[in-house]
């Protein structure tokens, strides 16, 4: 049963991902991206990562995707029609990522860890929180600082150009 739901979400995710990268209109891409993100959140739920799923919806769906929409509205440009890659034969663009996927797949499938027995019915939030704030306290703090830096940096980069006035 769970697997069926997983498959459903997975197919939705893949489909909308394909749409994301193939739409010529950026706004359409964004919408499909939102779909993908939500589907992946669904996948998370089927994998009993409820907290992660929640974060995915809140942060990705509510934050990042909305941000994309804003940006597209602000710059407000249509997709350039000609999709043209310079110089590099297209074959490489297919070949290398595919090769990479193949390799990753080989590694991952060949090195599958044995499943650890455990209670069905989801991981406890408590365990996650405890681990996050004890073993991973330092990375957590660093991540916080990173976010702060990004905040300042982004504001700075975007603002300084503005202050130069319209050019």
């Amino acid at each position, binding site marked *: 049963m769970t697997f069926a739901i997983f498959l459903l979400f997975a197919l939705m995710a893949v489909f909308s991902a394909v749409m994301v990268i193939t739409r010529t209109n950026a706004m359409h891409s964004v919408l499909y991206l939102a779909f993908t993100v939500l589907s992946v959140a669904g996948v998370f739920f089927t994998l009993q990562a409820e907290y992660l799923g929640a974060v995915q919806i809140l942060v990705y769906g509510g934050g990042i995707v909305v941000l994309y929409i804003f940006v597209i509205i602000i710059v407000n440009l249509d997709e350039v029609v000609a999709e043209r890659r310079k110089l590099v034969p297209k074959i490489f663009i297919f070949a*290398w990522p595919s090769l990479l996927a193949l390799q990753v797949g080989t590694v991952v499938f060949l090195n599958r860890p044995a499943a650890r027995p455990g209670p069905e019915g989801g991981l406890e939030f408590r365990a996650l929180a405890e681990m996050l704030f004890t073993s991973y306290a330092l990375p957590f703090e660093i991540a916080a600082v990173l976010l702060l830096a990004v905040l300042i940096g982004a504001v700075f980069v975007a603002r300084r150009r503005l202050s130069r006035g319209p050019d």
Partner: protein
Amino acid sequence: MFAWIPLFPLLGALANGLLGIKFFSRKAVQAVGVGSVALSFLASAASFVALLRGSEDVLVARLFSWIPPSLVPLADGGTAAFAVDLAFRYDSLAAVMTLVVTGVGLLIHVYSVGYMAHDRSFARFFAYLNLFTFAMLVLVLGANLAVLFIGWEGVGLCSYLLIGFWFSKDAAAAAGKKAFLTNRVGDFGFILGIGVLLFVLGTIDLGSINRLAGEGALTKGAATAAALLLFIGATGKSAQIPLYTWLPDAMEGPTPVSALIHAATMVTAGVYMVARLHALFTLSGLALDVIALVGAGTAVYAATMALVQFDIKRVLAYSTISQIGYMFLGLGSGAYAAGVFHLMTHAFFKALLFLAAGSVIHALSGEQDMRKMGGLRSRVPTTYRVFLVGALAISGVPGLSGFFSKDEILASAFASGPTVAWALGVLGAGMTAFYIFRLIFLTFFGPERMDEAARLRCHESPPVMTVPLRILAFLSAFGGFVGLPHLLGGGAWFGKFLESSTGRHAGHLAAGTEALLMALSAGVGLAGIYGAYVVYVRKRGAPAFRLKERFGALHRLVFRKYFVDEFYDGILVGGILRLGRLAGGFDLKVIDGLVDGAAALTRRLSKISIFFDGRVVDGAVNGVGAVHRHASRLLRRVQTGYVYNYALAVVFGLVIIMALVVTVF
């Protein structure tokens, strides 16, 4: 006591060089310059007296450890601690040398006060001159080969600086460089010689080398190798075949310099060095023969060139080369004391000749071409008289200093040297007399050939120049009596005095033979003078012109100095320069080409496409290879500057890494 001798010129050089150029008046400069050498001369004299009175034959003053000991393996499988002390050694040989250097040096310093009076760089000149005196004294006092080498190179440096003293003259600057470089070629041998001695003996201390060589601590082969290598150094410094070409060019320097460095002292350093290591050289008969033959050969060879030169200083320069050849002939015959004796008398009369020539040049406002002189006898009488004394001395006229020393050399060559060398020596003696009197006749006799302006300005030199000339003339005339041979009732005192440092000369001749040889050498000298008289005075140079026409090619050959300079410049120097250009091209084309090719991918990243294109194309055109071009053309396309292409590169890198991971795990 004797360790003070070199100190004064050093202080003088420092004072004049560092302060004098800016702050000293002319008077102060000359007081410091001349005074320091005078003090040094006094110290030498005092040391000499002390040596005569004292019971010690050898005094050693160890100043401090220069290069502290380090282990080196030796030829016999052992190890030795190689250490060099900055130490001075004073014995009879050093005593003679210091007296000559400081004595003649002092006179030349005094002379320079007058000669250089109008030069702008007065202080610099005296600083160099003092520095030279210092270096020369270090050379003759050094207790080991390394300290000797300090002086050896030091005099070379000063020679370089003084030849190029008028550095804005291109010829002077080039001549200085040539002198230094030629000497360097010799030093190459010298250093290897030191290496051999260190390797087989484990020491480079002069006293130890002589002692060990005397004890037979080294094989004949090793001795020959060391001796010949050191002799290469000597040929450079003393301007012998094949490294003599720098000396005539060195005449670009001021005349006092030519007198001091290129006649009296520095160029005889090779002679001194061989005499200093007499025990080593004695061990190797081959080396001695080589030295004797090179010496005799040079003596004649240089004399032939002196016969045809017109530049008054160049004649003297070739004469110097020739005379040093005699000294080496003496050394090569095993008569070390005789060689040193000639070194001393030569210092007197050649310094005299140079300074007198300088006086002539001074009188004619810088004219050096003898074809524009003539008839100067009455215009510069003092100069003429002293010049005549010097000429007679060098010609070997009996009674003057040159006679005694040259005769002693020829006698020893006859007794124990190769006979060919002796014969050449006699031939050279005649030529010597001829060319020096040719010079006198051309300069002081005959019609006045200078132009009107020069004739009017022509004047005798001031006393500050003529007094040293007179003193040198006195020494040239009578300096030989310190070595008056037994045959003439003397005690050969000079040779005896030197015995403690250069050993006793083995070869002895019967009194009759000796007398015969003496008569022969005197006769040859007089014949040479007469020949010159006939050619240049009685026939007014006519025979010379006829000879010149008759043997045009030969004359041209000799006049152009056997084209040796051209050979050296064209073949050797030119060859080296060509090699350098080749190497530079190799660097640029091949190595860089390879590097460029290999690094093409990464290089392109660096956005230097314009230059690089040129380089790639050039490289290809120049035959680095078409592969190179194709590879780079392919790779160039990768570097588009577009972000996604770089992203693709990243993916590609990931693929590679993953491939590694897949294969490894």
